[in-house]
């Protein structure tokens, strides 16, 4: 890990990224954004609603092309296609209701061309890692929202992504489940050594999980603040009782408050 970090300082690099939607009326959704994320970092993005967080994610994984600027993943530029090594977990329930949990997880490897045995091993591992072993023959409709989101994370995990992008993955879950899912996400991050980029609207979630949090402005979204949390790598949701946690959350909120007011004013 440390060798890679030396030879390749940035895992993901955005420079001068702007995203505009053609009109009429044309919408300037994002940027310009310059951002580098070192390999293995847990980076979160918070911002007022409608600030282009999801657009940032689309651009980052190659689902959308930036109008200008460049996105580099592991040194090579993205060209409108999701490259190997990036896994994405969406906010919406993206489990497939016609497949069992196991089949859902295995879906990630359907085009991989890996031998059956290896597929089975990876699926078994991901299913039990996400605590779904007992439910592997269940169908999504028989599971709770949190469990379905775990299925989606497991489906990403089997691909052994080096960069995991999560777009408000716990947005639809209740607070307790979110805290526990946060712990699981931290465990996953530690054990896979992957770089994680989490988009969230929950300041406490960002403060609790991340090494670094980027605060975005109202549309067009830009980074207006970067906050280093300084948590140790083997942290869990109990950092919420750390006095520093309050300081971090307070700083995030003071950066964000004005921007949130802007969007409220715009909406009114």
């Amino acid at each position, binding site marked *: 890990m440390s060798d890679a970090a030396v030879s390749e300082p940035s895992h993901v690099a955005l420079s001068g990224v702007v995203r505009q939607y053609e009109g009429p009326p044309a919408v300037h959704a994002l940027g310009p954004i310059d951002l580098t994320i070192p390999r293995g970092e847990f980076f979160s993005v918070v911002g007022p609603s409608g600030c282009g967080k999801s657009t940032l994610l689309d651009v980052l*994984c190659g*689902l959308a092309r930036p109008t200008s600027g460049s996105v580099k993943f592991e040194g090579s530029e993205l060209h409108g*296609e*999701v490259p190997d090594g*990036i*896994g*994405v977990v*969406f906010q*919406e*329930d*993206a489990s*497939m*209701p*016609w497949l069992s949990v196991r089949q859902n997880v295995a*879906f*990630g490897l*359907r*085009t991989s061309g890996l031998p059956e045995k290896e597929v089975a091993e990876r699926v078994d591992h991901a299913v039990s890692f996400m605590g779904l072993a007992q439910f592997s023959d269940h*169908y999504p*409709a*028989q599971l709770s929202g949190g469990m379905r989101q775990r299925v989606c994370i497991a489906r990403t995990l089997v691909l052994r992504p080096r960069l995991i992008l999560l777009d408000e993955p716990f947005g639809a879950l209740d607070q307790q489940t979110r805290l526990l899912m946060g712990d699981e996400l931290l465990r996953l991050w530690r054990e896979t050594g992957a770089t994680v980029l989490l988009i969230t609207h929950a300041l406490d979630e960002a403060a609790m999980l991340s090494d670094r949090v980027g605060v975005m402005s109202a549309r067009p979204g830009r980074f207006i603040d970067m906050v280093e949390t300084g948590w140790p790598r083997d942290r869990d949701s109990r950092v919420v009782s750390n006095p520093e946690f309050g300081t971090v959350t307070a700083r995030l909120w003071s950066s964000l408050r004005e921007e949130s007011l802007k969007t409220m004013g715009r909406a009114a």
Partner: protein
Amino acid sequence: MTRRRAVLLVRIAVLAGLTATLEICCRTGLIDPLIVIPPSEMVASMIDRVGSGELDESIVNTFSTIALAFVLAIGCGTLAGALVHRSSRLRDVVDPLLASYYSVPTFIFYPLLVALLGLGKAPLVVLGVLSGAPAVMISTLSGLDSVSPVLLKLARVHRLSPARTLWWIVLPAALPRLFSGFKLALSYALIGVIAGEFILSGTGLGFAISFAYQSFDNRAMYGLMLFVLLIAVTANGILYVWEGRLARRRSTG
């Protein structure tokens, strides 16, 4: 499970009760046997007719026509639905037409079809397709609408080709709605073909029923009617069970 079984039992009991009542009414002369024959006689007549072999050709004819109309209705309906789904402008034009389609009695075009296509299988197939395809088209549109956008995004994240996206994501996601269209298409194809044979045809079960009716052969008429009814119920039952099996996975429990 026990509730489902109980419902099934009651349903069977209701049907059996109605049949028994009819039987009693006919046997006691409450209903003139010249108008309706007792159900037991209908069954006996059906077994006679179908067992005699004289109807073999009609049966093959009718059901091959229905099968052809059904398959074509599914093919045309799905394809047309998929095409319309691609263009929102076309959709705006077509939607109200589809919604009002079933207020048009398609049968009135049957004489025209016969004039155009002759008295063979062709006008019957066209009638069956005309009855069934729009239902499939409607269900295809609503099925494609029901595919969640996040699953299409997922397909892009997994770099699936358009064919694989269709086969692995769009079709299974839309299947429950598609299926309800298929069920309707089967019923409509059956109704269209048999009714067509009834009106203007020289072959098939519909014609056989109409012929028996016109020659005052009540026994034959009721036997044949029962046969058609049984086949229709069985065919629909098979689709129903199949659909239920697909749906059970997707629901809780």
